[in-house]
């Protein structure tokens, strides 16, 4: 019979635990994910170990089954919370759960990008959820009809996404993980998408800074003048549409200054009320 040291026994038990834990559908006690492996292996706390791990200290075999950490805090919190059954609280909870589900829907799936490549994966992701795509060299928009849409199922290097029109899809910031590496994207319309705010523009100006020529963010009311200023990175931008959001003076000033540094840029949807107000 093989005798394992206490450490390897514990390790084996933990490995087995990890393997069959998902099958038990146990409530995940850790809401914050991502394991971290430090770049260097130095750990300054190694010089002091818990008293029981020191050499020469006796421990019984029952310690193998003792949990390393205490009971789950989530269980305690659920038990201690009085569940609020008022209609407003239930409505709020429903809204919150729906939003969390939508954001989970935007998750990055590595297999999708493995099989399809970046362009087709983005196309599938968007068209399935209600947006419209146009590829390089084609003039027709690919949309979803009911549940059907016509896109290749395997990687095909000829399909490059040229234009994206969000239509009525609700795009969240996390969805951009699926729209990376679109090197030919020239035309992007996020009109009427209410989730768009300054962080979106920050992401867009990073992802598509070398290719995007047309951007439409009309009716995206959460965008402020700071987000518009962030578009300074987009050197190829020719048309920017900001209908119905360019109401404040700061916004108009930001648009003016953006047009200053990018002479080929043309901003539509802004009416400069007072030309004497330019203070730069």
């Amino acid at each position, binding site marked *: 019979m093989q005798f394992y040291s206490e450490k390897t026994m514990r390790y084996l038990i933990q490995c087995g635990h990890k393997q069959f834990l998902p099958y038990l559908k146990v409530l995940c006690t850790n809401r914050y994910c991502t394991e971290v492996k430090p770049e260097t292996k130095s750990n*300054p*706390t190694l010089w*002091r170990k818990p008293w029981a791990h*020191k050499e020469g200290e006796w421990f019984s075999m029952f310690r193998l089954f003792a949990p390393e950490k*205490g009971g789950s805090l989530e269980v305690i919190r659920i038990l*201690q919370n009085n569940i609020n059954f008022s209609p407003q609280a239930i409505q709020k909870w429903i809204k919150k759960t729906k939003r969390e589900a939508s954001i989970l829907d935007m998750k990055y799936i590595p297999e999708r990008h493995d099989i399809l490549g970046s362009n087709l994966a983005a196309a599938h992701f968007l068209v399935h959820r209600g947006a419209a795509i146009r590829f390089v060299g084609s003039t027709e928009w690919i949309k979803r009809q009911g549940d059907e849409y016509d896109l290749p199922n395997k990687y095909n290097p000829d399909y490059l996404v040229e234009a994206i029109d969000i239509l009525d899809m609700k795009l969240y910031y996390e969805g951009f993980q699926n729209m990376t590496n679109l090197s030919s994207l020239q035309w992007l319309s996020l009109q009427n998408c209410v989730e768009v705010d300054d962080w979106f523009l920050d992401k867009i100006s990073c992802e598509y800074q070398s290719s995007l020529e047309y951007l439409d963010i009309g009716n995206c009311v959460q965008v402020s003048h700071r987000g518009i200023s*962030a578009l*300074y990175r987009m*050197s190829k931008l020719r048309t920017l549409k900001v209908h119905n959001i360019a109401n404040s003076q700061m916004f108009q000033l*930001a648009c003016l200054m953006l047009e200053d540094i990018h002479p080929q840029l043309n901003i539509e949807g802004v009416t400069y009320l007072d030309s004497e107000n330019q203070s730069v």
Partner: protein
Amino acid sequence: MFISTMFKAVNTFKCRKFIKVKFVNLYKNACFCTNKSEVSSSYEPPKPENPFKRTFRILGNDMKTAKNKVQSFITKVQGVREVTNKVPKSPYRDGVFPEHCDIAIIGGGAMGSSIAYWLKQRAPNAITVTVIEKDPSVNQNIVSWGQYVDASTVLSVGGLRQQFSLEENIRMSLFGAEFLRNIKQHLSVEGHDPPDVQFTPFGYLCLASEEGAQQLEENANLQKKLGAKNELLTPVKLKQKFPWINTDGIALGCHGLENEGWFDPWSLLYAFKTKALSLGVEYVDGEAVGFEFKKMPDMLTEGVEPGSYEAVEKVLVKTESGELRSIKFGFVIIAAGPHSARVAKMARIGTGEGMLSIPLPVEPRKRYVFCINCKNGPGLNTPLTIDPSGAYFRREGLAGNYICGRSPLPEEEPSVDNLDVDYDFFDKNVWPILAKRVPAFESVKVKSAWSGYYEYNTYDENGIVGPHPYYTNLYIATGFSGHGIQHSPAVGRSVMEMILDGDFETIDLKRMSFDRLITDTPLIEQNIF
């Protein structure tokens, strides 16, 4: 009969004297021992309240509030409106000073409030958290709530960047960006406006001369590996993208493309504090002036002689009205910013023996920030630019204002007695460098300036996060040397995991623990300004 009563009287008299003697002696030996350090010994710990007096005081207060309730009900029913003199509203949550809590946090700036928020949102009904902050209000005459005068948080420039060389710093900044993006989901309170930190996503541009180019490239690769987006630019490309720049002496530039910029630190602090208060955190306006210790001869810890262990049990707080109270805690967290070394000394860190002889190397360093106006300055395409010499500048608003500053050389460190600004510093040290780097800055006008304290870690300029090796219930979260505000959500979460989970779960900050001072392994950050 007479003898028996006499006997009883004498006995009770003896009994009482005996009990009094015993009680007084017990009290003297029980909780505290005289502290040798200079700070704590000038304050006598407050005597515990006589239990009978306390009972009658509380009963009396209850009677008064009941009487007021009945009175106000009667006046409401009668329809009479008059100014009732109510019991003055106590600043404390339960009406009395919180004499004990589970977790005491010394310091209510961004770090302290962040830790309080994360602790309370994970276990809202399981633990009580008390935050001790010494300057919450500006003007004592005006009852304005929560305006910190010389706390470093609100005087900070509020930058957020991923351009560091240490993995922990990069990860903490990435989480900080994610937290700020979702701040409405994290920190909204019912009945208040959703918090808005006014993030300006402009990016950072770090410039390096020949010597620093190699390090800059390595840093950029590490940041890309961990998920930050940046681009390395040669001087030619720099000139193309940013025509206002003068690339003399520049070999390489690193331009952060995403999740970098600046925000309003005051809004973040206010959001943290409001949310923490709504979750049940108690904010005490007072200054921590000492600790009370308890001998625990049965405690065995690594590195401590058996039988000599003394735990911290209570913190002495001097309230606004000048009275001295004590708070008994289960854990204490030192997040006092630039004044952390003073607080740590009260806990004998630096003045004791063995492990306690190593002091907390955090001291305040004054840094100036100048607001200048330039008519034809760089346009919108101006990220926060950092020169190899350490001078930086960024846009402020859209009207041609810029904010700039520079870390002084070690021999030019200004005194930290007050927050007065030395405008000569701008003329001598900041403006020449800026004018060389950006020719448009030849003609600028200084509009205003302010100064604030860095919580400068003199050992290696990086934060110290984690438990102290001697004390089992003392944690430290300080020393961030100028980039604490962007790391405050991540540090708050990590300290919460340390206390409630026992270990770091998301970002591993083991390398930033206090132990590195004992084992002498400094954690040098190559990109500090």
